[in-house]
């Protein structure tokens, strides 16, 4: 089965992994029904062509805002690696349906911080 490879998440990136219904006419990545935007474009290509939703109440807002965030945070930290690692992940269509392992239990509260 072909799975949707659209990037999900904000700080913890993943792949959508839902069953694909089409492939993006721009970049050819498989997209599911929820992620097929105007003209069947994937979210990233739709964003690149200016179809961003500026209203944070809308479910597609996060995906459009994300790239702008990585650009501005990379700039604030003078950390080009931060942006390029995002960009590479976002453009690479590998590893579809990424899911995350359980993190286990949460211990007692915070003490003993040191400056980094």
């Amino acid at each position, binding site marked *: 089965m072909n799975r949707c490879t659209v990037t*999900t*998440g*904000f*700080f*913890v*990136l*993943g792949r959508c992994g839902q069953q694909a219904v089409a492939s993006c006419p721009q970049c050819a990545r498989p997209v599911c029904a929820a992620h097929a935007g105007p003209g069947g474009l994937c979210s990233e290509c739709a964003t690149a062509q200016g179809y961003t939703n500026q*209203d*944070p*109440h*809308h*479910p597609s*807002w*996060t995906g459009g*805002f994300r790239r702008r*965030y990585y650009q*501005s*945070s990379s700039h*604030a*930290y*003078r*950390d080009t*690696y*931060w942006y390029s*690692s*995002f960009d*590479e*992940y976002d453009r*690479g269509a590998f590893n579809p349906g*990424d*899911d*995350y*392992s*359980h*993190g*286990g239990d*949460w*211990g007692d509260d*915070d003490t*003993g*911080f*040191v*400056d*980094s």
Partner: protein
Amino acid sequence: MFWRKQKAAIERFHPLHRALTLEKGFAVSLRRDDWEPVIQSLARHRTEIRRRRWLLPARVPGVLVPMLRIMASDMRPDGVLSVAADVRGPRLPEKTGPQYDVPVQRPVLSMKQWYAMDPWLRMRAELRDGSVLELSVTDRVRYRRRRKRNPRGKIKIKTKTKTTHLVRVTRRLAKDTAVQRPGTPPPPWIRVQVKQGRRMMFRANGKLPGPLGEAELIDRILHVSTEPFRWTPPGRAMGRTTT
């Protein structure tokens, strides 16, 4: 009957949206997908509510809603997102600290100074890589009330305020998560602390001179939040222990 239509609209709101409208706050823990109906209800506020006392401050659509979306996008469906929001503002007795006198020079006759601490947003999210993120935004407002004699001998009283946004973000990683030290230090206005251990913790504190508009405030909150994630950059250490 006054405001009949708007009262009816509030009755149809999601209970948390109603609490935000009428009581100006809520504190609750919900699973990820239970936040979507809250956001969809909040989306109707602007078109359905006109009455001034029921309007929501700009930080609700401008900061709270974007942060709900961002946190939820990094969670599994069964992850829990806890939120305490308080949009009553800093001018409440329980948020106000003691007044004290500040030494002055003529023509100022006396000056009192005090602070208000307004922790208006607190969030805790169980993220899908097994880490836990905690975030708080507190407005610290300094008040200075001056009594001054003007050139014609009249006494004038003037109060000035100065707002600072204090942003604190803590991320506790899942056990034995691989990390890499970021290549550049954070900007000078962000202070970072690291706690070593099997479950590493990162804490970033940002101090932002305000008051900032919502668009800039959300950017800055996310900049403070960035540091704890720079140690596990996308596509590299993805919070997964290889077995």
